[in-house]
């Protein structure tokens, strides 16, 4: 009666294994923040207003550059045309910068060759062409970025504090057993979510794993209260007055499968729709949140009720022991009198 049921044990063991593995992998490799392009190469073409005022010149330039990159077997991740700003007055100039971004590991010699080819072409294009009439040059660069860490550790503490604050309220309203079980669910969900991203090496933006952990904690508390309300109603029900409380908790959790899944399903559906409609870069931001919304379901349905059942059983046992001692003493006293 006071032992963890098998599914909960398996789930808790899998969770614990993934969390430990996630912590180890995070310490060694960190998250896969490939979308942040922390290490990247750029091929940049700086050109002036002549290209903007000459019909079709900007398009021709892009076509030419892309041809040069293709000839050098270079494939870029993204292309942007940015306005150049005067660094002292900060006003916009008429110059522009065409920036092609390449992944880490791109052939530097090929980039340099492409730059030389482009610059030679610009120089020799002839004075009557737009290249001859304007100031234009190409260059390549390598850049490395290191994330800021203060936001990461403060975010983790913030989520932990949020969970504790919410569950203090749960403790006041639903009792210690429910709060401890809710804490177990929320901590498991938040850690497991971050661990899943570390273990699977799923590409994420650097700031998002904590955001997903926060979503998991939020979902976990939400689903736990949905289930907690049903458990509280069941425990108070007259037909369960004489029943073993731990069994009532387990039975209610089992009967609430549909409710919990339906509630989680609403959140998953809305996030998935938002993610699928979003722009390609944003999909990678929004869609992994679905994982954060789904993972707490397991903890809430199987781990939480078991923890609560265990604590309830222990509380009931203590209460029963107290009752036995109390009545025993009173009866003995009465007999003596």
């Amino acid at each position: 009666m006071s032992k963890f049921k098998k599914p909960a044990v398996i789930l808790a063991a899998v969770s614990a294994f993934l969390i430990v593995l996630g912590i180890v992998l995070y310490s060694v490799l960190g998250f896969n923040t490939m979308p942040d392009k922390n290490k990247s190469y750029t091929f940049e073409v700086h050109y002036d207003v002549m290209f903007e005022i000459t019909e079709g010149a900007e398009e021709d330039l892009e076509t030419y550059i892309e041809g040069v990159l293709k000839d050098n077997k270079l494939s870029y991740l993204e292309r942007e045309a940015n306005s150049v700003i005067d660094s002292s007055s900060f006003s916009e100039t008429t110059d522009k910068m065409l920036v092609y971004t390449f992944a880490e590991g791109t052939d530097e010699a090929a980039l340099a060759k492409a730059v030389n080819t482009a610059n030679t072409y610009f120089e020799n294009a002839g004075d009557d062409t737009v290249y001859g009439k304007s100031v234009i040059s190409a260059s390549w660069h390598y850049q490395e970025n290191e994330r800021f860490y203060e936001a990461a550790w403060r975010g983790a503490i913030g989520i932990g504090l949020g969970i504790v604050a919410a569950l203090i309220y749960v403790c006041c309203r639903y009792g210690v057993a429910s709060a401890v079980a809710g804490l177990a669910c929320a901590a498991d969900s938040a850690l497991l979510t971050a661990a899943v991203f570390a273990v699977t090496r799923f590409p994420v933006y650097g700031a998002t794993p904590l955001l997903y952990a926060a979503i998991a904690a939020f979902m976990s508390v939400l689903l736990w209260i949905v289930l907690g309300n049903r458990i509280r109603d069941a425990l108070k029900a007259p037909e369960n007055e004489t029943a073993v409380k731990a069994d009532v908790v387990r039975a209610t959790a089992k009967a609430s499968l549909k409710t919990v899944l339906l509630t989680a399903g609403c959140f998953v559906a809305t996030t998935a729709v938002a993610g699928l409609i979003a722009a390609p870069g944003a999909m990678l931001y929004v869609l992994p949140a679905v994982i954060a919304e789904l993972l707490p379901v397991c903890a809430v349905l199987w781990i939480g009720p078991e923890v609560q059942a265990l604590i309830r059983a222990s509380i009931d046992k203590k209460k029963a022991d107290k009752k036995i001692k109390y009545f025993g003493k009173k009866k003995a006293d009465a007999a003596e009198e």
Partner: protein
Amino acid sequence: MSKLKSAIALTLITILIAGVCFMCTATFSYGYDGMTTFNSFISMLEKDSNLGGMLGDGENYLGGGYSSIYYPEGVISAQEYADNHAQLEEMSNSSKDTPEHDERVEALENYEKKYARYPDENGAVYVDKEIVFGDKDGTAVSDEFKADFARAEKILRNRLEGLHMEGVAVDVRDDYTFRITLSAYSGAQAVMLNYFSYMGEVDMGYGSSASAATHLVIGEDETIRDYIAGATTGVAQGTAYVVLNFTRAGASVISGWTSAATTDSPVTLYFYVGDESIVQLQVTSAVSGGQLAISGNYNAETARAIALTIDSTLKGEPTEMTFTIGETMRLGANFGDAALPLIYIAVAVLFVGMLVFFFIRYRGLGIAHLYTSLSWLLVMILLVWGIPFLHLGYETVMAVVLAGTLFSVSEAVAYESVKKEYAVGKTMISSFKAGYKKIFWKLFDLHIALALIAFFTYFVALGELSVFAFTLGLGVVLSALCLAFGCFVWYALMSFPKNQGKFCNFVREEVEDDE
């Protein structure tokens, strides 16, 4: 509630919602020749570096970011080298038959000898051999330069990290330059990019001008840290100020410098980072105490830039490296120009989908949900627009989607509770009361717990997570308020239909007749 009262209440609510809805979404030009533009609240929402967007009139940019290259002394771009070289070459060629020719040829040769392309013949920068290699004939970057660059990197990272903003980054580019990125919504980007390039030791002085000021005399075993402890910022009554915290020795120096200050003969205090004067302060009376709050023409961002520049320099290891600001660019949205319209479409699809569900399942009662959900969404837009540290980004959208779903699910749960009561044969009003009574504390507990988790996370977290948590907290609180508002709208709506059960798509349970 009588029909008349209900009609008046609903009409007023409709007008209010329609008006706010119009102000939130419509951007248009008016006045003589369309010279004046009314910008909708949505168009005026500040967008983060991932989402781009123009203000309604298309003139002011509200998304994306800015990037700037910092070149340390002794490092120049290949383009700058090529331009200087071409200029010297042209001067040398054009002076062939003049007495200056030899001098110009020598200048060109010296220039070529002075610089080396780094790291190899394909490198993107040129380095001054004497400064970077430590030797005119050197070929490798000196340890001293490397250490100086590393110290500068640490200081720069502290400055940028201290902004606690999304879209802020320090990249090391081409090994020995920095690329600084700031989001457009951070404000005061020009000031930040300028001040953040200041390196060197913090210094202070007083006098008639920054260049002629009498500087602090620091003892042999002392540093400026023995006089200035740090710098922070504050905002009071809309005025932003920089706070300099002095040690006891520092406070004593400032007190001594300002002891003779009067309105007729003020004393000007100067604070420097490296050779650059960053704060000037005219004092008309003696300054005492360990703090100096300086308010000038600062806004919160400029004050923060100044405080961060001073504070990070004090807390970091000083470096003598000086920087020149190179190419500065205005960056577009990280997720492309289509990201913002697609986000609006996604929110609209979710909103319409949710309404369709309510209208199918609860028929006329869907109107009540239309009112409450519109109110929820519009107030959220106004809050994100009005609260200074909130902006439109994916974290905000995620929070809105989560809180919006919570609100819709909560309202559906409340409707279902009433539906159950109605099914057992109660009147609509008593079903409404009993249903809401049964569900009230459950929804209340849920909202309180979720608001607690969101706001506690917000108080500790930084950047995107704090924006997400705060928006989520707002959405949850607003959800609770709109649920209460929903009761009123439902109550008002119930005055009109003859068959209230049919209007709400509620049915009675069929009772089996034993006879």
